[in-house]
C-alpha cells in the first residue's frame, strides 16, 4: 500500500485505541462486506473491494489464526442443501490466505443434530486445511440428547467441566468457554458458577499486558436477548477480564458478523459456513434465512485473526466464501 486511500480511517482522538468514528463506519459496512483491522491501537477499515490493494504485511504478525463457526453438518434444507460443500469452500479460502494461520478455532454448532457421522464429516473436511490444530467449543446443536457426553469424548481431552479450557500461543492466552449447557427456561446462554470460578482462577496469575482471546458459541454480549442471543452471566466473566489491556471475544451462533468495542474488549461474531440468519428482529424468528443460491456464499464466511506483539488489539478480518 504505497499511499493512504481516502476511505482509510486513522482517528484515535482519545488515545484509547478505539477509533469511534472509524468503528462506526466499519459497523455500517459490516453487512455489505468490509473488514476492520486494529493496528498500533488505531482502527483501520477497508471496503472489501480494495482487499487486493492491502499489503499483506499489514495482516501479518506474531500469530495468525482462523475462526470458523456454525458448520451445522447435517442441515440439508433451503438455503443450503450442501453444507459440506460450503465448509470445503471455507477450507479452500483458508488455504489461500496470504498469512498462513497456525491453527483454527471452531466456535460450535459443528453438527446439526449431534450425530456421530456429522462430527466425522466435519473432521474429515477440516483435515484438508493447512492449519492442523482445531480448538473446539460446543454449540447447542452439539450437545443434543446426551448432555454433551459425545462432544467431550471427541474434543474434551484435557478440558474441565462441560469442556472449558485455556492455552497459550506466543504469549496470547486463549480461553474456550461453554455457554450452551443447562439452559434454563426463558433464559439465555449460561456459563454457570463452576466455570466462572475456574475462569477467575485461570486468569489470576496472568500479567495485565497478556492479550486475551475468549471464544464461546453464544455471544458473550447482549446482541438480541429476545432471540436468546446473549449469555446470562457474561458480565461476571468479563469482570474477571477487566484488568487486561487487550481482550478479544469471538463468538458464533448468530450466523452473521457483528462487532462491538467496550473499553478494552472487542466483541466479534463470525459468519456461519452453513446458512445465514436474519438481522436481530428483522424476521419472525431467528430461523435460517433463505437467500438466492447465487448469493449464498456472500453471506457465509470465516474470520481471520492476527496478533502483532506490542499492539493494542488483535486484527479481526471477516472473509465471505464468495
Amino acid at each position: 500500500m504505497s499511499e493512504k486511500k481516502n476511505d482509510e480511517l486513522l482517528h484515535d482522538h482519545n488515545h484509547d485505541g478505539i477509533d469511534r468514528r472509524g468503528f462506526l463506519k466499519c459497523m455500517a459496512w459490516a453487512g455489505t462486506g468490509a473488514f476492520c483491522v486494529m493496528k498500533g491501537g488505531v482502527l483501520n477499515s477497508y471496503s472489501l473491494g480494495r482487499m487486493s490493494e492491502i499489503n499483506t504485511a499489514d495482516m501479518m504478525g506474531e500469530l495468525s489464526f482462523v475462526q470458523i463457526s456454525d458448520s451445522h453438518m447435517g442441515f440439508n434444507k433451503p438455503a443450503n442443501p450442501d453444507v459440506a460443500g460450503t465448509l470445503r469452500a471455507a477450507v479452500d479460502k483458508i488455504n489461500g490466505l496470504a498469512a498462513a494461520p497456525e491453527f483454527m478455532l471452531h466456535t460450535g454448532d459443528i453438527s446439526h443434530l449431534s450425530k456421530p457421522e456429522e462430527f466425522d464429516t466435519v473432521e474429515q473436511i477440516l483435515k484438508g486445511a493447512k492449519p492442523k490444530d482445531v480448538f473446539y467449543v460446543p454449540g447447542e446443536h452439539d450437545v443434543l440428547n446426551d448432555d454433551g457426553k459425545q462432544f467431550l469424548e471427541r474434543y474434551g481431552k484435557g478440558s474441565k467441566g462441560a469442556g472449558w479450557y485455556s492455552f497459550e500461543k506466543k504469549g496470547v492466552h486463549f480461553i474456550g468457554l461453554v455457554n450452551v449447557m443447562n439452559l434454563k427456561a426463558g433464559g439465555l446462554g449460561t456459563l454457570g458458577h463452576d466455570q466462572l470460578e475456574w475462569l477467575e482462577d485461570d486468569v489470576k496469575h496472568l500479567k495485565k499486558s497478556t492479550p486475551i482471546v475468549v471464544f464461546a458459541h453464544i455471544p458473550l454480549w447482549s446482541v438480541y436477548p429476545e432471540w436468546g442471543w446473549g449469555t446470562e452471566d457474561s458480565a461476571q466473566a468479563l469482570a474477571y477480564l477487566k484488568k487486561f489491556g487487550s481482550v478479544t471475544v469471538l463468538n458464533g451462533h448468530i450466523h452473521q458478523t457483528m462487532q462491538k468495542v467496550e473499553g478494552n474488549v472487542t466483541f466479534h461474531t463470525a459468519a456461519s459456513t452453513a446458512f445465514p440468519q436474519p438481522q436481530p428482529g428483522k424476521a419472525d424468528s431467528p430461523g435460517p434465512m433463505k437467500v438466492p443460491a447465487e448469493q449464498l456464499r456472500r453471506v457465509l464466511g470465516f474470520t481471520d485473526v492476527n496478533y502483532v506483539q506490542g499492539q493494542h488489539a488483535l486484527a479481526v478480518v471477516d472473509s465471505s466464501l464468495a
Partner: protein
Amino acid sequence: MRRSVSIAGLAAALVLGIELWGTGQKGSVTSAQGRMSTMEVKIDNFSFGPATLTVPVGTTVTWTNRDDIPHTVVSTDDPKAFKSKVLDTDEKFSFTFSKPGTFPYFCSVHPKMTGKVIVQ
C-alpha cells in the same frame, strides 16, 4: 332421498357429539373416547402454538416441529414430568397427561421458547 340421508347423518353426529360431551362433563373419559382426548401443539417460528393449552385429564398432547431447526419439548418441573428427544423437522413427540395440574415446559435448545399445559 339424498337430503334425508344427510339429515340422518347430521343427527347421528349430533347425538354422538352430545354423548361425548356428556361423558366429558362427568369426568369419566375412557379409552373408548380416545379420539377426543388428543390435542396438538405446533412448533412454528421458534414458538409453541398454542403456548398455553388447557386439556382434561387423560389427554395425549402431540407436539410437531414445523421449523427448519431442531427443537425439544422439556418439562421445567423437578423432577421432569416429560422430556422429548430432539425433534428434527416434522418429527413429533407425545405425552399423556394422567394427573391434573399445570405443566410448564420449554425447548432446551432455545430456552426462550416456553409453553405450558394446564390439565383439569
